[in-house]
């Protein structure tokens, strides 16, 4: 009997311990020190400090997944032989942020430089986990970058990263498929819906595009439509997906979802690449960083794809929005901030920019965007089209006044719990967005924001 009872208790205890494995991940509730940075814009002193760091040399650990940074690192090390750069791919997007948050919390293994997408940067700047780069004179770089990305690295007056690339949106389409079915390039979203119907009727296996519910895509389209669901003022946040711009988006996009006119294939999946290759996904409305991805991931599409301006919500309109795009930031816990800033500047402002453009990246610097060499470049993949002309024009038309939540990473992670229901057929897009709004408000309140 006693043996039996002990056995029972042990089994129960095994159950408990197995449960706890899920929660037993390093986090110290007592040890989060905000460590306020000294943000004194003393430019010459800062420049001297950066130069001194370069002269002294050292090792930099850079966490980034963007492929063209390899060339940047090679160039940087060639120019400053005393500096060794250790470029680590710690995961793409969310995976890397999780690793970074954990390293910051643990207080060890924190990189000197981290790639952080614009939508995620506020989460880090608000927690003061990344350095205000005004200490190194970053505030004097205004005018170097296009307005959208430059605004994205700001939080209040602080500058928490240097824009690395940008993602003004455009319509990438498979001209072969469009021509075969006599589809005109859609100038408005109404045209886009009509094209979707026509294409799917002509070939039931073909879709105008894919969509299974993507937070970044949805917010970008709401942005373009004039919706401003997030209002952020320091720690005061408002979330409202009921505004006119959002409704403009939902009423049009609902037609595509309800009519099953978008392929139920998640972006970046194997099936997605397959669909892009065989023409069953005929177009993408996506950021300007897409050409390099198409060239490497969709080789069968060479010569078939073209780029056109983003479809408009009003005929004759000229508004676009950003989709993706990253900054380079310096964690507050970085060991050698001056040297890290030197790398940032090299990669985002100096020679590194051209190296990345040559590798197929889409820059955020006005100098590169307006240079004839950039604009006139003909892309064999796109049938010799001067793709950058279209993309650079989009960069100039990005609608202003948009901001992301200071906890957008989490909000995006529960997008499919809420708005996803609209794709599974259980709700409308507006209802889904309303419950996403509720979930975002709830989390904001739990995190101590004053949420309206």
């Amino acid at each position, binding site marked *: 009997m006693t043996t*039996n009872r002990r*056995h*029972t*208790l042990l*089994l*129960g*205890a*095994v*159950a*408990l*311990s*197995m*449960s*706890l*494995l*899920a*929660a*037993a*991940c390093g*986090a110290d*509730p*007592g040890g*989060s020190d*905000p460590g306020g940075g000294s943000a004194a814009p003393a430019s010459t002193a800062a420049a001297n400090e950066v130069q001194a760091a370069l002269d002294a040399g050292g090792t930099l650990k850079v966490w980034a997944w963007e492929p063209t940074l390899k060339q940047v690192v090679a160039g940087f090390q060639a120019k400053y032989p005393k500096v060794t750069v250790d470029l680590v791919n710690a995961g793409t997007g*969310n995976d890397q942020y*999780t690793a970074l*948050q954990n390293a910051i919390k643990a207080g060890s293994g924190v990189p000197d430089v981290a790639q952080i997408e614009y939508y995620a940067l506020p*989460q880090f700047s*608000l*927690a003061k986990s990344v350095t205000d780069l005004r200490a190194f004179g970053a505030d004097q770089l205004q005018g170097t970058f296009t307005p959208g990305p430059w605004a994205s690295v700001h939080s209040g007056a602080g500058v928490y990263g240097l824009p690395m690339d940008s993602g003004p949106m455009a319509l990438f389409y498979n001209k072969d498929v469009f021509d075969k079915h006599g589809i005109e390039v859609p100038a408005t979203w109404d045209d886009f819906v009509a094209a979707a119907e026509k294409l799917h009727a002509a070939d039931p296996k073909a879709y105008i595009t894919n969509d*299974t*519910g993507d937070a970044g895509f949805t917010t970008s389209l709401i942005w373009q439509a004039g919706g401003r669901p997030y209002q952020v003022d320091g*720690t005061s946040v408002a979330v409202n997906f009921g505004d006119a711009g959002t409704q403009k988006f939902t009423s049009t996009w609902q037609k595509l979802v309800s009519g099953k006119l978008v*392929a*139920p*294939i*998640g972006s970046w*999946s*194997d*099936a997605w690449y*397959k669909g892009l290759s065989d023409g069953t996904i005929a177009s993408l409305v996506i950021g300007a960083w897409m050409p390099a991805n198409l060239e490497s991931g969709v080789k069968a599409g060479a010569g078939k794809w073209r780029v056109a301006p983003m479809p408009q919500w009003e005929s004759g309109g000229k508004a676009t929005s950003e989709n993706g795009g990253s900054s380079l930031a310096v964690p507050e816990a970085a060991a050698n901030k001056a040297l890290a800033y030197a790398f940032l500047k090299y990669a985002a402002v100096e020679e590194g920019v051209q190296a990345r453009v040559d590798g197929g990246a889409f820059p955020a610097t006005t100098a590169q965007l307006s240079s004839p060499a950039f604009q006139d470049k003909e892309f064999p993949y796109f049938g010799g089209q001067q793709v950058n002309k279209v993309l650079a024009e989009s960069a100039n038309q990005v609608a202003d006044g948009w901001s992301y939540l*200071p*906890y957008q*990473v*989490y909000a995006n*992670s*529960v997008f*499919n*719990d809420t708005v*996803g*229901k609209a*794709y*599974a057929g*259980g709700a409308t897009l507006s209802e889904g967005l309303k419950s996403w709004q509720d979930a975002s408000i709830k*989390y904001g309140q*739990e*995190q*101590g*924001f004053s949420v309206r």
Partner: protein
Amino acid sequence: MAVTRRSWTGWRFAGPFLAVFALVYVAPIAYSFYLSLFRTRLIGGTTFVGFDNYVQAVGDPQFWSAFGRVALFLAVQVPIMLFLALLAALAIDSGRLYGTGFFRISVFLPYAVPAAVAALMWGFMYGAQFGLVGDLNDAFGLSLPDPLSAELVLLSIGNIVTWEFVGYNMLILYSALRVVNPSLYEAAQIDGAGQLRIVWAIKLPALRGALLVATIFSIIGSFHLFNEPAILRNLAPNAITTYFTPNLYAYWLSFAGQRFDYSAAIAIVMGVITMVVAYAVQLRGMRRGALS
């Protein structure tokens, strides 16, 4: 002097176990419990909140929806799986099968496939667009329901888990059957008992203890469902929510929501529930054992 030495001898035997036990077992639980008493906010930092996280967990509809889902899973999947395992064990033990070795290995083999790989493999088969289901639809002009749709996905996960664990449970039951003294069967045959009668009167009672163990493992396994939904979520993000199972919810709260504190509370609540259910089943099993 001698007394002291004798008491230390005991510690020397128990010490290695106790050290490992404390390190890998007591420490994580204690630490999780410690975490669960705080709340860390983006604005306002970390504060001691006592049992607030537990209060929140008890009133959290997402947690209870996750719990309800695994409870349903437990009620439906575990009996089916154990019944199949029992059939397989009895079939092998009957001695009337050719190639029992091959049969035993092939039923057990899925257990050797890592759960993540198994989930991926089944995910590809389930795919209604580019998977086996999609190919069947294309080849025969069928319109099979999408196994990864919100309505069917729990059933599809149940199928994967059954496939994975029938062989494992079969081995537990089969090894319990192997220790039955064969002279009992001979005696029964002399008394005129047929095979079914032998199964009913000798084998099933002999299996009670093993079935109890298998049941308790299955209860724990069901409550801790994580791998399969976590991996299939990549293929069906709209059908599998981030709070599909309690463990997935705890994981999501930690790694996407930075809510280690609340996640720890959820894990402890779930651990206690699992312990209570496992204990209740064990008690019931023992009482029935005592009665017979």
